């Protein structure tokens, strides 16, 4: 492998890793605030792809308008799911809400099958994103190049929001203690909604970046990427945003290099291997808190 190919793979790795990171943030933030693994997150990501088909193919809207609409629709879907399937279980045992999340995941997959059929549907082309560019000998597409940049920008903005704004402070407080947060006058349902808005917005952006270089979408298209991003979040320490980002990049890079070495079939196995090894030796993940139990 010469340097150029190596760098090419690096770029491809951090690019897919950036997408994983964006989705992993959704898992980790929802977990942080509700102690819930939102199994439906991967399917929300899949639904975002169908929204894009709707906007660009069925309504023939320009890509930038479609992008905005997809973000809005995905966010609304996520917030709606939270209100319908999770909010009524706020004081139920943790297992109930987890099962509800699994239910929503299957519901979305079956809904997509019912509405759009199980056959793959062509994902619209965004010519601008697929333009080839050449960076000092590395030839790549615009989408591969801008994905990691977008990821970094969003992560920096998100960390600013969480660490340096009033809303962010409330999010950190709610993630520790619902009851005391209420005593401060914080409307916890509002903070939870905001968390879903952020997670689903990133899933929508991730979806566009993920599917743009791919030919088609099908109802199960969200489940494997969703699972990988969940692993990325666990690897980084679920609840921790920097952890999820690091996990996402790491899994993206490993996967790309394993594929490059000719073991494509093995790349997903490797991801699960990471999960098992991590759970065996450091169950809290890289940046996880010691005890995530709520008082």
């Amino acid at each position: 492998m010469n340097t150029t190919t190596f760098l090419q793979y690096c770029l491809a790795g951090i690019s897919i890793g950036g997408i994983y990171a964006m989705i992993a943030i959704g898992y980790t933030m929802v977990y942080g605030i509700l102690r819930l693994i939102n199994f439906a997150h991967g399917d929300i990501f899949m639904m975002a792809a169908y929204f894009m088909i709707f906007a660009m193919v069925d309504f023939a809207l320009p890509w930038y308008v479609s992008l905005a609409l997809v973000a809005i629709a995905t966010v609304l879907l996520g917030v709606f799911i939270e209100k319908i399937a999770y909010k009524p279980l706020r004081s139920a045992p943790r297992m109930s809400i987890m099962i509800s999340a699994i239910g929503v995941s299957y519901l979305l997959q079956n809904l997509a099958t019912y509405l759009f059929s199980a056959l793959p549907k062509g994902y619209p082309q965004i010519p601008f994103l697929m333009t080839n560019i050449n960076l000092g000998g590395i030839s790549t597409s615009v989408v591969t190049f801008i994905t990691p940049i977008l990821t970094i920008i969003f992560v920096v903005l998100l960390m600013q929001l969480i660490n340096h704004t009033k809303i962010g402070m409330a999010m950190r407080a709610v993630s520790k203690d619902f009851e005391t947060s209420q005593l401060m006058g914080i409307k916890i349902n509002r903070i939870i909604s905001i968390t879903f808005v952020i997670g689903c917005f990133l899933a929508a952006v991730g979806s566009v970046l993920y599917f743009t270089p791919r030919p088609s979408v099908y109802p199960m298209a969200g489940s494997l990427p969703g699972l990988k991003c969940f692993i990325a979040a666990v690897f980084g320490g679920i609840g921790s945003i920097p952890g999820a980002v690091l996990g996402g990049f790491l899994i993206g890079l490993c996967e790309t290099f394993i594929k490059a070495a000719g073991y494509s079939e093995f790349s997903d196995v490797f991801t699960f291997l990471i999960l098992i090894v991590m759970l065996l030796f450091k169950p809290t993940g890289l940046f996880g808190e010691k005890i995530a139990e709520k008082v």
Partner: protein
Amino acid sequence: MSNILEIKNLVVSYGGIEAVKGISMEVPQGQIVTLIGANGAGKSTTLKSISGIVRPKEASILFDGEEMVGKSPDYIVSKGITLVPEGRRVFPNLTVMENLKIGAYLRKDNLKDDLEYVFRLFPRLKEREWQMAGTLSGGEQQMLAVGRALMSKPKLIMMDEPSLGLAPLVVKDIFRIIQTINEEGITVLLIEQNANMALKIAHKAYVIETGKITMEGTGLELLENEEIKEAYLGKSKK
């Protein structure tokens, strides 16, 4: 003297079991009122009902003449009721400064004077402004919990066992602070295990037993009462 808070027939049940069985209390404006009682008597439940985080089965809770039952906790805070919860419950992952700021979550005005006021009451907190609240000592956490509550500019501050688990000297400090706060015009509703000290500073006191008020009087009256002496002050009858 007018009552800032009037509770009539408060009934709270947790999944069918009544924890509070129809208590009525009056908290006069500007006074310190204490509620004493054994473990599980329903003291915390009473305060949580006033704050709106526990929904009573039935009750009328008038604050400044306005009905608070059925109102959301944030509305109740905005009207000037604050609770220092049992076990302090500071946000361990927020700094001391952030804990104070979050106490003023609903306020839109400038916090500078109030921060200064809290730091004057608790100079220890000023030194530890940037420390994570989870790493404070128990006494410091209690000071922070009180300071945080004051940041909402309350008219009524309710405290749930503020002296629990603290060294005697720190307990004295806390009681001194409670009196200071009260002298500055804030009404105090205090729950205490430390009945002796609570009755000494209270203008008015209630005794609660298994969800019912069994006695009321001035702090002094209850301090002198033989039954109270035996049950709560650890002194036997002569």
